[in-house]
């Protein structure tokens, strides 16, 4: 359900792949100035906003306007912003973060438990309806999922589940892209002979999956988990529509609530006014888990890519 189509899904056999096929012989050593300028410009474009965000959290609102935009405020300022943010409606920020973690994590567990066996069965077994399921998955994977949010609201409303956390988690758990990735992985990287050997040794079908296929699929499991977690953590539209109460919001929707209370952006902001540096700090908190997952999975993802790349 929550595939963000703007973000590229990275097939496992790409990325860092097949480095061995190219050498460095014959390359120009003198960098082209135009290329250097291009790379530098985009370096600034991608980095400066992130850097600014980190620094803004350490400043007062006055410093934000009068100081150098890329200067450090003070530890005291960071502390003050932290206190002000956490005091906002009594720890609501932590509640939002906890909600995000709960939704994203439960959906992740279900996604993996559901998608990996499905990808395996689609790739390695024959059963009635296999082709239909495969085609349906491809179609749904490419269909803009945000357009289903309003119909999904109507459906969930019809079964009186609006406001339940499962109305968020279950649609998150439906992750056709994860099925597609595992399907590609199993059909390209897992030799059938291996399965037949295990079967001859007396393994049940489930045993073959659990003892042979699953251990070999760790890289793709991690990859699906990575994409699913990031997609769910950053989803806005679905919880925005489906969750009626502030204390159920994930942090993404919470950020919107905070934004509403920043006087510079909304002059009618009431008594619960939020200063801009607090909003910056809240944004920083909201992205930290995703950033950590990014950093930690970097190596693992690259290793996964290489495992697939040997196929080429």
């Amino acid at each position: 359900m929550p595939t963000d189509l703007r973000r590229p899904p990275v097939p496992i056999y790409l990325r860092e792949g097949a480095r061995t096929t190219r050498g460095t012989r014959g390359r120009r050593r003198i960098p082209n100035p135009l290329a250097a300028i291009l790379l530098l410009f985009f370096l600034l474009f991608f980095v400066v906003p992130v850097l600014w965000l980190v620094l803004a959290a350490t400043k007062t609102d006055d410093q934000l306007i009068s100081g150098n935009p890329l200067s450090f405020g003070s530890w005291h300022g960071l502390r003050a912003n932290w206190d002000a943010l956490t005091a906002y409606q009594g720890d609501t920020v932590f509640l939002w973060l906890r909600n995000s973690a709960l939704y994203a994590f439960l959906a992740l567990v279900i996604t993996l438990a559901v998608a990996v066996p499905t990808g395996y069965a689609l790739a390695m077994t024959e059963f009635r309806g296999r082709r239909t399921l495969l085609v349906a998955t491809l179609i749904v994977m490419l269909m803009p999922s945000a357009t289903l949010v309003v119909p999904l609201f109507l459906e969930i409303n019809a079964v009186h589940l609006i406001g339940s956390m499962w109305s968020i988690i279950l649609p998150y758990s439906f992750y056709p892209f994860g099925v597609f990735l595992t399907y590609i992985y199993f059909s390209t990287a897992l030799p059938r002979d291996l399965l037949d050997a295990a079967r001859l040794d007396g393994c049940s079908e489930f045993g073959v999956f659990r003892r042979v296929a699953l251990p070999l699929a760790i890289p793709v499991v991690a990859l699906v988990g990575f994409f699913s977690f990031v997609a769910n953590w950053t989803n806005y539209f679905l919880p925005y529509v489906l969750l009626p109460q502030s204390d159920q919001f994930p942090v993404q929707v919470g950020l919107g609530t905070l934004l509403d209370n920043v006087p510079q952006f909304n002059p009618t902001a009431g008594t619960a006014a939020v200063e801009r540096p607090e909003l910056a700090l809240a944004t920083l908190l909201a992205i930290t888990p995703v950033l950590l997952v990014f950093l930690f999975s970097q190596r693992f993802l690259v290793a996964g890519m290489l495992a697939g790349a040997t196929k080429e």
Partner: protein
Amino acid sequence: MWPGRAGHGFVAAYTLLLIAFGVVPTVYAVYFAFTNAGDTFAGLSNFTAAASDFRFVPAITHIGLYLVFWLVSLVVFVVGLSLVLHRLAARPLSKVLRFVYYIPGALAGAASVMVWLFMLDPAVSPAGFLLRGLGYDTFAQVIAPGHLPILLTIIAFWTGAGGWIVVMYGALNNIPHDMIEAARIDGANAWQIARRIQIPLLRKWIVYMAILAFAGGTQLFVEPELLSQASNGVAGRDYSLNQLSYDFAFQNNNVNTAAAISVELLVIGLVVASVFVTRSGFFDAD
């Protein structure tokens, strides 16, 4: 391949989710789109109601304009940057740059909009001098509705491009070096190699990127929604089609027209998807 019940066991849970959250909402949307509030068949009246709404044509125009900017910038800059990074003699530098370009991807969704609210406010932005140089002194001037296609493109590019650069780089790696070497021996320069060999071989991936970006672009919601919140109405709440659908459903209490817009978006998505599946050969078994 072996027949059987085992296969069904493996796919049962997924099939349930597919039905509940893929098939049923689609059917539901179609049902609502062709009925009226009294649950009777309404023909195309919901579609004409949506199309004749004064916000509909502007919303289509907005999305169309945004898609042009977004797709062109994505194809030009992602392919360009990937080629440059791939030629970079200093491998560690190339790797670091790819990772750094990738970082804003962690700020998808509302977080990226928050960052860009600040970046686009001349009072606090590190690029404030640029904005003032262009003649914009206030946040409201910067996010004037006419600027939104470009601003939304910048936000989307900022969060999405890094991941695509990694993909393109991987695809470039898969081009056999012999082929490049042969062209070089024949006297081709970097530009000719890129144009005659690398870009044609990337074609499939460029199409893949463009189609996913197109499908994603049509479902714009969080960016214009939060921008309109922050600008206090300078940017309207009805900028994109999804916002319009949301408004029909929850402000106007008109779920049938809302569903009609959803169905239209789904049809666009479905057409794009099927063109992609049938024409690109992308899913051909390998």
